[in-house]
Protein backbone atom coordinates (compact mmCIF):
# COMPACT_ATOMS: atom_id res chain seq x y z
CA UNK A 1 0.00 0.00 0.00
CA UNK A 2 2.64 2.48 1.14
CA UNK A 3 5.05 1.54 -1.64
CA UNK A 4 2.31 1.93 -4.17
CA UNK A 5 1.42 5.36 -2.94
CA UNK A 6 5.06 6.50 -2.94
CA UNK A 7 5.50 5.30 -6.52
CA UNK A 8 2.30 6.75 -7.92
CA UNK A 9 2.92 10.05 -6.18
CA UNK A 10 6.48 10.30 -7.51
CA UNK A 11 5.15 9.61 -10.99
CA UNK A 12 2.65 12.43 -10.59
CA UNK A 13 5.34 14.73 -9.21
CA UNK A 14 7.65 14.00 -12.13
CA UNK A 15 4.82 14.93 -14.44
CA UNK A 16 4.21 18.09 -12.41
CA UNK A 17 7.86 19.17 -12.66
CA UNK A 18 7.83 18.52 -16.39
CA UNK A 19 4.66 20.63 -16.73
CA UNK A 20 5.80 23.47 -14.46
CA UNK A 21 7.04 26.67 -15.99
CA UNK A 22 10.28 26.73 -13.92
CA UNK A 23 11.60 23.66 -15.67
CA UNK A 24 11.40 25.47 -19.01
CA UNK A 25 13.66 28.16 -17.63
CA UNK A 26 15.91 25.43 -16.24
CA UNK A 27 15.57 26.58 -12.62
CA UNK A 28 14.72 23.15 -11.26
CA UNK A 29 14.60 19.76 -12.92
CA UNK A 30 13.97 16.25 -11.72
CA UNK A 31 14.57 12.85 -13.27
CA UNK A 32 14.33 9.25 -12.13
CA UNK A 33 17.63 7.36 -12.08
CA UNK A 34 17.71 4.02 -13.92
CA UNK A 35 13.93 4.11 -14.21
CA UNK A 36 13.61 3.71 -10.43
CA UNK A 37 11.14 5.87 -8.59
CA UNK A 38 12.93 5.73 -5.21
CA UNK A 39 16.19 7.32 -6.34
CA UNK A 40 16.04 10.55 -8.24
CA UNK A 41 18.37 13.23 -9.48
CA UNK A 42 17.34 16.82 -8.91
CA UNK A 43 19.07 19.80 -10.43
CA UNK A 44 18.78 23.39 -9.24
CA UNK A 45 20.44 26.54 -10.50
CA UNK A 46 22.29 28.85 -8.14
CA UNK A 47 20.06 31.79 -7.26
CA UNK A 48 20.94 35.04 -9.07
CA UNK A 49 22.73 37.63 -6.95
CA UNK A 50 24.28 34.98 -4.71
CA UNK A 51 27.83 33.57 -4.86
CA UNK A 52 26.24 30.45 -6.41
CA UNK A 53 24.89 32.36 -9.44
CA UNK A 54 25.49 30.47 -12.67
CA UNK A 55 26.23 27.15 -10.95
CA UNK A 56 24.31 23.95 -11.61
CA UNK A 57 23.82 21.97 -8.40
CA UNK A 58 22.88 18.31 -8.41
CA UNK A 59 20.77 16.85 -5.60
CA UNK A 60 20.74 13.20 -4.62
CA UNK A 61 17.13 12.34 -3.72
CA UNK A 62 16.08 9.13 -2.01
CA UNK A 63 12.38 8.41 -1.53
CA UNK A 64 11.59 6.43 1.63
CA UNK A 65 8.99 3.68 1.43
CA UNK A 66 6.73 5.71 3.72
CA UNK A 67 6.73 8.72 1.37
CA UNK A 68 4.81 11.09 1.46
CA UNK A 69 4.31 10.43 5.18
CA UNK A 70 8.04 10.74 5.70
CA UNK A 71 10.18 13.42 4.02
CA UNK A 72 12.46 12.62 1.07
CA UNK A 73 16.15 12.18 1.96
CA UNK A 74 18.01 14.85 0.02
CA UNK A 75 21.67 15.81 -0.07
CA UNK A 76 23.85 17.78 -2.43
CA UNK A 77 25.70 15.58 -4.90
CA UNK A 78 27.63 18.68 -5.98
CA UNK A 79 30.02 20.08 -3.38
CA UNK A 80 28.73 23.35 -1.93
CA UNK A 81 30.30 25.92 0.41
CA UNK A 82 27.30 26.93 2.52
CA UNK A 83 26.64 27.20 6.30
CA UNK A 84 23.64 24.85 6.14
CA UNK A 85 25.27 22.24 3.90
CA UNK A 86 28.06 19.91 5.01
CA UNK A 87 31.12 20.75 2.91
CA UNK A 88 32.24 17.12 3.25
CA UNK A 89 29.06 15.05 2.82
CA UNK A 90 26.55 17.42 1.19
CA UNK A 91 23.98 16.85 3.98
CA UNK A 92 21.43 19.66 4.16
CA UNK A 93 20.06 21.23 7.34
CA UNK A 94 16.55 22.35 6.43
CA UNK A 95 13.53 22.07 8.71
CA UNK A 96 11.10 20.88 6.03
CA UNK A 97 13.38 17.89 5.37
CA UNK A 98 13.06 16.91 9.02
CA UNK A 99 10.36 17.83 11.54
CA UNK A 100 8.41 20.35 9.48
CA UNK A 101 7.79 18.06 6.53
CA UNK A 102 4.19 17.94 5.34
CA UNK A 103 2.71 15.57 2.81
CA UNK A 104 1.38 18.49 0.76
CA UNK A 105 4.96 19.51 -0.11
CA UNK A 106 6.44 18.19 -3.33
CA UNK A 107 9.95 17.48 -4.52
CA UNK A 108 9.58 20.57 -6.67
CA UNK A 109 8.66 22.86 -3.76
CA UNK A 110 11.39 21.31 -1.62
CA UNK A 111 13.97 21.91 -4.35
CA UNK A 112 12.80 25.51 -4.65
CA UNK A 113 13.21 25.81 -0.86
CA UNK A 114 16.75 24.44 -1.12
CA UNK A 115 17.46 26.95 -3.85
CA UNK A 116 16.11 29.71 -1.59
CA UNK A 117 18.34 28.40 1.20
CA UNK A 118 21.35 28.82 -1.10
CA UNK A 119 20.36 32.46 -1.56
CA UNK A 120 19.79 33.17 2.14
CA UNK A 121 21.90 31.07 4.52
CA UNK A 122 20.81 30.61 8.16
CA UNK A 123 24.07 30.76 10.13
CA UNK A 124 22.36 30.24 13.49
CA UNK A 125 21.30 26.71 12.57
CA UNK A 126 24.46 25.43 10.90
CA UNK A 127 25.22 22.06 9.35
CA UNK A 128 28.90 22.87 8.80
CA UNK A 129 30.49 24.65 11.76
CA UNK A 130 33.59 25.81 9.87
CA UNK A 131 31.57 27.37 7.03
CA UNK A 132 29.06 28.92 9.43
CA UNK A 133 31.86 30.42 11.52
CA UNK A 134 33.42 31.92 8.42
CA UNK A 135 30.03 33.21 7.24
CA UNK A 136 29.62 35.08 10.54
CA UNK A 137 33.12 36.45 11.02
CA UNK A 138 34.67 36.76 7.53
CA UNK A 139 31.79 37.41 5.19
CA UNK A 140 33.85 38.46 2.16
CA UNK A 141 36.12 35.39 2.42
CA UNK A 142 32.98 33.26 2.68
CA UNK A 143 31.50 34.83 -0.47
CA UNK A 144 34.74 34.29 -2.35
CA UNK A 145 35.08 30.67 -1.23
CA UNK A 146 31.43 29.97 -2.11
CA UNK A 147 31.94 31.50 -5.56
CA UNK A 148 35.16 29.54 -6.04
CA UNK A 149 33.43 26.25 -5.09
CA UNK A 150 30.51 27.08 -7.39
CA UNK A 151 33.06 27.58 -10.17
CA UNK A 152 35.11 24.41 -9.62
CA UNK A 153 32.25 22.05 -8.67
CA UNK A 154 29.06 23.49 -10.17
CA UNK A 155 30.44 25.06 -13.34
CA UNK A 156 29.73 28.69 -12.46
CA UNK A 157 31.49 30.99 -14.96
CA UNK A 158 33.54 33.26 -12.68
CA UNK A 159 36.42 32.00 -10.56
CA UNK A 160 38.48 33.77 -7.90
CA UNK A 161 41.99 34.53 -9.15
CA UNK A 162 43.73 34.62 -5.75
CA UNK A 163 42.34 31.21 -4.86
CA UNK A 164 43.29 29.76 -8.25
CA UNK A 165 46.88 30.91 -7.63
CA UNK A 166 47.08 29.40 -4.17
CA UNK A 167 45.69 26.08 -5.36
CA UNK A 168 48.08 25.99 -8.31
CA UNK A 169 50.99 26.78 -6.00
CA UNK A 170 50.18 23.83 -3.77
CA UNK A 171 49.36 21.44 -6.61
CA UNK A 172 52.93 22.10 -7.86
CA UNK A 173 54.18 20.74 -4.54
CA UNK A 174 52.62 17.41 -5.53
CA UNK A 175 49.29 17.36 -3.71
CA UNK A 176 46.00 16.32 -5.29
CA UNK A 177 44.00 19.28 -6.56
CA UNK A 178 40.75 18.34 -4.77
CA UNK A 179 42.57 17.83 -1.44
CA UNK A 180 44.25 21.20 -1.86
CA UNK A 181 40.93 22.94 -2.59
CA UNK A 182 39.22 21.38 0.42
CA UNK A 183 42.03 21.96 2.89
CA UNK A 184 42.70 25.54 1.80
CA UNK A 185 38.97 26.31 2.18
CA UNK A 186 38.70 24.64 5.58
CA UNK A 187 41.73 26.60 6.81
CA UNK A 188 40.64 30.05 5.62
CA UNK A 189 43.06 29.95 2.63
CA UNK A 190 46.07 29.90 4.94
CA UNK A 191 48.67 27.96 2.91
CA UNK A 192 50.76 27.13 6.00
CA UNK A 193 47.83 25.62 7.88
CA UNK A 194 46.60 23.69 4.85
CA UNK A 195 50.11 22.29 4.35
CA UNK A 196 50.16 21.16 7.98
CA UNK A 197 46.87 19.28 7.50
CA UNK A 198 47.93 17.72 4.18
CA UNK A 199 51.42 16.71 5.29
CA UNK A 200 51.51 16.55 9.09
CA UNK A 201 54.90 16.67 10.80
Amino acid at each position, binding site marked *: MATNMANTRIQRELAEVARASDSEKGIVSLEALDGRLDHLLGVIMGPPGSPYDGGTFKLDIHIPVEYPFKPPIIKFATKVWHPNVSSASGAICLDILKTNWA*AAMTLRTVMISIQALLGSPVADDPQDAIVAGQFKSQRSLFDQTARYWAHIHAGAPTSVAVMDQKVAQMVQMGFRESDVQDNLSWNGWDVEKALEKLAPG
Partner: protein
Amino acid sequence: MDPEMTTMIDAAPSTTSLVKPDHKDTSSLRDRLIGNADLEESLGAKEENAEAETSLAARATMTSYPSLVDTSVLDRQCWVCFAGEDEEPGQRWLRPCRCRGSTKWVHYLCLQQWIDSQQKGTVTMPVTCPQCGALYLLKYGSVGAIHRILDALERSINKGCPYMAGICLVGATYWTAVSYGALTVMQVVGHREGLQMMERSDPLVLLIALPSIPACLIWAKMARWEDWAARNWRWLLHSVCPWVFEQPAEDFLFADQHTSPSRILCGALIFPTIATLIGRFLLGRRVRSNLNRTILGGLVFIGVKGILRIYYKLKHNEQYQKREIMDAPETRNADTQAPDDMFQ
Protein backbone atom coordinates in the same frame (compact mmCIF):
# COMPACT_ATOMS: atom_id res chain seq x y z
CA MET B 1 -39.43 7.42 2.72
CA ASP B 2 -39.14 7.22 -1.05
CA PRO B 3 -36.84 4.29 -2.02
CA GLU B 4 -35.80 5.93 -5.32
CA MET B 5 -34.61 9.01 -3.52
CA THR B 6 -32.46 6.97 -1.11
CA THR B 7 -30.55 5.21 -3.89
CA MET B 8 -29.96 8.48 -5.67
CA ILE B 9 -28.44 10.02 -2.57
CA ASP B 10 -26.32 6.92 -1.96
CA ALA B 11 -24.85 7.18 -5.41
CA ALA B 12 -23.59 10.70 -4.78
CA PRO B 13 -21.85 10.72 -1.41
CA SER B 14 -19.34 13.33 -2.52
CA THR B 15 -22.07 15.93 -2.89
CA THR B 16 -23.21 15.34 0.64
CA SER B 17 -19.71 15.78 2.02
CA LEU B 18 -19.42 18.94 0.01
CA VAL B 19 -22.43 20.62 1.44
CA LYS B 20 -21.85 19.64 5.03
CA PRO B 21 -18.74 19.68 7.19
CA ASP B 22 -17.46 16.13 7.11
CA HIS B 23 -16.97 15.58 10.80
CA LYS B 24 -20.73 15.40 11.22
CA ASP B 25 -22.24 11.98 11.32
CA THR B 26 -23.00 10.82 7.77
CA SER B 27 -26.19 8.95 8.54
CA SER B 28 -27.85 11.95 10.15
CA LEU B 29 -26.59 14.05 7.25
CA ARG B 30 -28.27 11.77 4.77
CA ASP B 31 -31.48 11.84 6.75
CA ARG B 32 -31.38 15.57 6.77
CA LEU B 33 -30.78 15.78 3.07
CA ILE B 34 -33.61 13.45 2.32
CA GLY B 35 -35.84 15.59 4.46
CA ASN B 36 -34.55 18.59 2.64
CA ALA B 37 -35.18 17.22 -0.82
CA ASP B 38 -38.65 15.94 0.07
CA LEU B 39 -40.73 19.08 -0.07
CA GLU B 40 -40.76 22.64 1.14
CA GLU B 41 -43.77 22.15 3.33
CA SER B 42 -41.86 19.83 5.64
CA LEU B 43 -39.22 22.53 5.96
CA GLY B 44 -41.78 25.09 6.91
CA ALA B 45 -43.12 22.78 9.56
CA LYS B 46 -39.70 22.32 11.17
CA GLU B 47 -38.63 25.94 11.06
CA GLU B 48 -38.01 26.20 14.83
CA ASN B 49 -35.82 23.13 14.68
CA ALA B 50 -32.11 24.05 14.62
CA GLU B 51 -31.24 21.12 12.40
CA ALA B 52 -33.71 22.13 9.79
CA GLU B 53 -32.24 25.63 9.80
CA THR B 54 -28.77 24.34 9.00
CA SER B 55 -30.05 22.24 6.13
CA LEU B 56 -31.90 25.26 4.82
CA ALA B 57 -28.66 27.25 4.91
CA ALA B 58 -26.87 24.43 3.11
CA ARG B 59 -29.55 24.42 0.44
CA ALA B 60 -29.17 28.16 0.07
CA THR B 61 -25.43 27.84 -0.56
CA MET B 62 -26.06 25.19 -3.16
CA THR B 63 -28.60 27.24 -5.01
CA SER B 64 -26.92 30.62 -4.88
CA TYR B 65 -23.34 29.56 -5.81
CA PRO B 66 -23.73 26.45 -7.95
CA SER B 67 -20.87 27.30 -10.34
CA LEU B 68 -18.34 27.90 -7.55
CA VAL B 69 -19.09 24.58 -5.90
CA ASP B 70 -18.97 22.72 -9.19
CA THR B 71 -15.53 23.90 -10.35
CA SER B 72 -13.91 23.23 -6.99
CA VAL B 73 -15.23 19.70 -7.13
CA LEU B 74 -14.02 19.16 -10.69
CA ASP B 75 -10.35 20.00 -10.21
CA ARG B 76 -9.91 18.85 -6.66
CA GLN B 77 -6.71 16.96 -5.92
CA CYS B 78 -5.70 15.04 -2.81
CA TRP B 79 -2.75 16.74 -1.10
CA VAL B 80 -1.40 13.41 0.12
CA CYS B 81 -1.46 11.10 -2.91
CA PHE B 82 -1.87 13.88 -5.53
CA ALA B 83 -4.58 11.92 -7.31
CA GLY B 84 -7.16 14.05 -9.08
CA GLU B 85 -10.91 13.70 -9.19
CA ASP B 86 -11.15 10.76 -11.61
CA GLU B 87 -7.81 9.03 -10.94
CA GLU B 88 -8.94 7.18 -7.83
CA PRO B 89 -12.67 6.67 -8.29
CA GLY B 90 -14.85 5.74 -5.35
CA GLN B 91 -12.63 7.43 -2.74
CA ARG B 92 -14.25 9.53 -0.06
CA TRP B 93 -13.18 13.17 -0.15
CA LEU B 94 -12.70 15.39 2.89
CA ARG B 95 -12.19 19.08 3.46
CA PRO B 96 -10.96 18.91 7.05
CA CYS B 97 -9.31 22.31 7.64
CA ARG B 98 -9.29 26.00 6.78
CA CYS B 99 -7.04 25.53 3.74
CA ARG B 100 -8.22 27.02 0.46
CA GLY B 101 -7.37 26.31 -3.15
CA SER B 102 -5.64 23.17 -4.31
CA THR B 103 -4.64 21.91 -0.86
CA LYS B 104 -8.20 22.03 0.46
CA TRP B 105 -9.14 18.50 -0.55
CA VAL B 106 -7.83 15.20 0.70
CA HIS B 107 -8.89 11.57 0.47
CA TYR B 108 -10.35 10.21 3.69
CA LEU B 109 -7.99 7.22 3.63
CA CYS B 110 -4.95 9.34 2.79
CA LEU B 111 -5.64 11.77 5.65
CA GLN B 112 -6.13 8.81 7.96
CA GLN B 113 -2.63 7.59 7.05
CA TRP B 114 -1.16 11.08 7.54
CA ILE B 115 -2.78 11.36 10.98
CA ASP B 116 -1.48 7.86 11.81
CA SER B 117 2.05 8.92 10.85
CA GLN B 118 1.77 12.01 13.08
CA GLN B 119 0.17 10.27 16.07
CA LYS B 120 2.62 7.32 16.08
CA GLY B 121 0.25 5.09 17.98
CA THR B 122 -1.07 7.65 20.47
CA VAL B 123 -4.65 7.55 19.24
CA THR B 124 -5.90 10.51 21.27
CA MET B 125 -3.08 12.89 20.30
CA PRO B 126 -4.39 16.05 18.59
CA VAL B 127 -3.16 16.58 15.02
CA THR B 128 -3.14 19.85 13.12
CA CYS B 129 -3.13 20.56 9.41
CA PRO B 130 0.55 21.04 8.39
CA GLN B 131 -0.47 23.87 6.04
CA CYS B 132 -3.01 26.02 7.89
CA GLY B 133 -2.47 24.73 11.43
CA ALA B 134 -6.14 24.01 12.00
CA LEU B 135 -6.85 21.26 14.47
CA TYR B 136 -8.37 18.23 12.76
CA LEU B 137 -11.72 17.36 14.27
CA LEU B 138 -11.38 13.74 15.26
CA LYS B 139 -14.47 12.05 16.55
CA TYR B 140 -13.84 8.96 18.59
CA GLY B 141 -16.50 6.33 18.78
CA SER B 142 -17.93 5.86 22.21
CA VAL B 143 -16.06 2.98 23.82
CA GLY B 144 -17.57 3.09 27.26
CA ALA B 145 -16.56 4.12 30.74
CA ILE B 146 -14.48 0.99 31.38
CA HIS B 147 -12.23 1.78 28.42
CA ARG B 148 -11.83 5.37 29.64
CA ILE B 149 -10.81 4.16 33.10
CA LEU B 150 -8.39 1.61 31.62
CA ASP B 151 -6.94 4.33 29.36
CA ALA B 152 -6.33 6.64 32.32
CA LEU B 153 -4.81 3.74 34.24
CA GLU B 154 -2.54 2.89 31.31
CA ARG B 155 -1.29 6.47 31.08
CA SER B 156 -0.65 6.82 34.81
CA ILE B 157 1.19 3.49 34.89
CA ASN B 158 3.38 4.58 31.99
CA LYS B 159 4.17 7.83 33.81
CA GLY B 160 4.80 6.22 37.20
CA CYS B 161 7.03 3.34 36.12
CA PRO B 162 10.34 5.27 35.83
CA TYR B 163 9.86 6.59 39.38
CA MET B 164 8.98 3.14 40.65
CA ALA B 165 12.09 1.68 39.03
CA GLY B 166 14.21 4.39 40.68
CA ILE B 167 12.67 3.71 44.08
CA CYS B 168 13.25 -0.04 43.63
CA LEU B 169 16.90 0.59 42.79
CA VAL B 170 17.40 2.79 45.86
CA GLY B 171 15.58 0.24 48.01
CA ALA B 172 17.64 -2.64 46.69
CA THR B 173 20.86 -0.73 47.38
CA TYR B 174 19.65 0.08 50.91
CA TRP B 175 18.78 -3.52 51.77
CA THR B 176 22.05 -4.76 50.33
CA ALA B 177 23.81 -2.31 52.63
CA VAL B 178 21.75 -3.55 55.62
CA SER B 179 22.63 -7.19 54.86
CA TYR B 180 26.28 -6.33 54.42
CA GLY B 181 26.26 -4.48 57.75
CA ALA B 182 24.68 -7.44 59.54
CA LEU B 183 27.16 -9.91 58.01
CA THR B 184 30.05 -7.66 58.99
CA VAL B 185 28.84 -7.41 62.58
CA MET B 186 28.62 -11.21 62.77
CA GLN B 187 32.04 -11.58 61.19
CA VAL B 188 33.72 -9.06 63.48
CA VAL B 189 32.24 -9.92 66.88
CA GLY B 190 31.56 -13.59 66.18
CA HIS B 191 28.56 -15.40 64.78
CA ARG B 192 26.56 -16.07 67.97
CA GLU B 193 27.56 -12.89 69.78
CA GLY B 194 26.68 -10.83 66.71
CA LEU B 195 23.20 -12.36 66.45
CA GLN B 196 22.56 -11.84 70.15
CA MET B 197 23.72 -8.25 69.92
CA MET B 198 21.44 -7.46 67.02
CA GLU B 199 18.47 -9.20 68.61
CA ARG B 200 18.87 -7.13 71.74
CA SER B 201 19.13 -3.76 69.97
CA ASP B 202 16.26 -1.57 68.81
CA PRO B 203 15.25 -2.46 65.21
CA LEU B 204 15.09 1.22 64.26
CA VAL B 205 18.69 1.75 65.37
CA LEU B 206 19.70 -1.35 63.41
CA LEU B 207 18.02 -0.07 60.25
CA ILE B 208 20.14 3.07 60.47
CA ALA B 209 23.32 1.63 61.96
CA LEU B 210 23.72 -1.46 59.75
CA PRO B 211 23.68 0.30 56.35
CA SER B 212 25.98 2.99 57.72
CA ILE B 213 28.69 0.33 58.21
CA PRO B 214 29.50 -0.04 54.48
CA ALA B 215 28.97 3.70 53.99
CA CYS B 216 31.54 4.49 56.71
CA LEU B 217 33.98 1.91 55.33
CA ILE B 218 33.81 3.51 51.87
CA TRP B 219 34.13 6.99 53.34
CA ALA B 220 37.17 5.95 55.38
CA LYS B 221 38.71 4.28 52.35
CA MET B 222 38.42 7.51 50.42
CA ALA B 223 40.69 9.26 52.93
CA ARG B 224 44.05 8.45 51.34
CA TRP B 225 46.28 8.99 54.30
CA GLU B 226 49.18 7.00 52.80
CA ASP B 227 49.38 9.40 49.85
CA TRP B 228 49.48 12.32 52.19
CA ALA B 229 52.13 10.63 54.34
CA ALA B 230 54.21 9.72 51.30
CA ARG B 231 54.09 13.31 50.12
CA ASN B 232 55.00 14.79 53.46
CA TRP B 233 57.20 12.05 54.95
CA ARG B 234 60.17 14.32 55.58
CA TRP B 235 58.00 16.80 57.44
CA LEU B 236 56.45 13.93 59.37
CA LEU B 237 59.82 12.50 60.45
CA HIS B 238 61.00 15.97 61.39
CA SER B 239 57.94 16.67 63.52
CA VAL B 240 58.13 13.25 65.27
CA CYS B 241 61.88 13.31 66.10
CA PRO B 242 63.22 16.79 65.34
CA TRP B 243 66.56 15.97 66.99
CA VAL B 244 67.34 13.25 64.45
CA PHE B 245 65.78 14.56 61.22
CA GLU B 246 66.39 18.01 59.84
CA GLN B 247 63.71 20.28 58.53
CA PRO B 248 63.24 19.45 54.79
CA ALA B 249 64.53 22.12 52.48
CA GLU B 250 62.05 22.11 49.64
CA ASP B 251 58.90 20.41 48.42
CA PHE B 252 59.45 18.07 45.55
CA LEU B 253 57.34 17.23 42.55
CA PHE B 254 54.97 14.36 43.14
CA ALA B 255 53.33 12.18 40.52
CA ASP B 256 49.71 12.03 41.60
CA GLN B 257 47.70 8.92 40.92
CA HIS B 258 43.99 8.63 40.71
CA THR B 259 42.22 5.78 42.50
CA SER B 260 39.30 4.32 40.62
CA PRO B 261 35.84 4.17 42.28
CA SER B 262 35.62 0.40 41.79
CA ARG B 263 38.91 -0.03 43.67
CA ILE B 264 37.67 2.13 46.55
CA LEU B 265 34.44 0.10 46.72
CA CYS B 266 36.13 -3.31 46.64
CA GLY B 267 38.86 -2.27 49.08
CA ALA B 268 36.39 -0.84 51.56
CA LEU B 269 33.98 -3.79 51.50
CA ILE B 270 36.63 -6.50 51.75
CA PHE B 271 38.46 -4.78 54.62
CA PRO B 272 36.50 -6.44 57.52
CA THR B 273 37.13 -9.89 56.04
CA ILE B 274 40.86 -9.25 55.71
CA ALA B 275 40.98 -7.82 59.25
CA THR B 276 39.24 -10.94 60.64
CA LEU B 277 41.52 -13.31 58.74
CA ILE B 278 44.71 -11.55 59.80
CA GLY B 279 43.50 -11.32 63.41
CA ARG B 280 42.73 -15.03 63.49
CA PHE B 281 45.99 -15.97 61.81
CA LEU B 282 48.27 -13.83 64.00
CA LEU B 283 46.55 -14.00 67.40
CA GLY B 284 44.38 -17.10 67.01
CA ARG B 285 44.55 -18.39 70.61
CA ARG B 286 46.12 -15.53 72.51
CA VAL B 287 43.16 -13.11 72.30
CA ARG B 288 39.79 -14.54 73.32
CA SER B 289 37.47 -11.74 72.22
CA ASN B 290 36.58 -11.84 68.53
CA LEU B 291 36.13 -8.08 68.41
CA ASN B 292 39.54 -7.30 69.89
CA ARG B 293 41.21 -9.83 67.60
CA THR B 294 39.62 -8.32 64.54
CA ILE B 295 40.48 -4.77 65.58
CA LEU B 296 44.10 -5.78 66.15
CA GLY B 297 44.13 -7.63 62.82
CA GLY B 298 42.71 -4.56 61.10
CA LEU B 299 45.29 -2.26 62.66
CA VAL B 300 48.13 -4.59 61.63
CA PHE B 301 46.75 -4.71 58.10
CA ILE B 302 46.38 -0.94 57.86
CA GLY B 303 49.86 -0.40 59.29
CA VAL B 304 51.66 -2.91 57.06
CA LYS B 305 49.72 -1.91 53.99
CA GLY B 306 50.33 1.77 54.74
CA ILE B 307 54.08 1.29 55.04
CA LEU B 308 54.20 -0.75 51.83
CA ARG B 309 52.12 1.81 50.03
CA ILE B 310 54.24 4.72 51.22
CA TYR B 311 57.36 2.83 50.12
CA TYR B 312 55.79 2.09 46.72
CA LYS B 313 54.72 5.70 46.30
CA LEU B 314 58.16 7.02 47.17
CA LYS B 315 59.90 4.62 44.79
CA HIS B 316 57.37 5.41 42.12
CA ASN B 317 58.02 9.08 42.61
CA GLU B 318 61.75 8.56 42.46
CA GLN B 319 61.31 6.79 39.15
CA TYR B 320 59.16 9.66 37.93
CA GLN B 321 61.75 12.24 38.92
CA LYS B 322 64.56 10.34 37.27
CA ARG B 323 62.66 10.18 34.01
CA GLU B 324 64.50 11.76 31.11
CA ILE B 325 63.38 12.26 27.57
CA MET B 326 66.12 11.24 25.14
CA ASP B 327 67.04 12.26 21.62
CA ALA B 328 66.27 9.71 18.97
CA PRO B 329 69.31 7.65 17.91
CA GLU B 330 71.07 9.02 14.82
CA THR B 331 69.29 7.62 11.76
CA ARG B 332 70.83 9.61 8.89
CA ASN B 333 73.25 6.82 7.96
CA ALA B 334 70.50 4.23 7.94
CA ASP B 335 68.40 6.44 5.63
CA THR B 336 71.09 6.92 3.07
CA GLN B 337 72.15 3.29 3.13
CA ALA B 338 68.72 1.80 2.64
CA PRO B 339 68.30 2.67 -1.09
CA ASP B 340 71.83 1.45 -1.83
CA ASP B 341 71.00 -1.87 -0.28
CA MET B 342 67.96 -2.16 -2.47
CA PHE B 343 69.95 -1.67 -5.66
CA GLN B 344 72.76 -4.00 -4.73
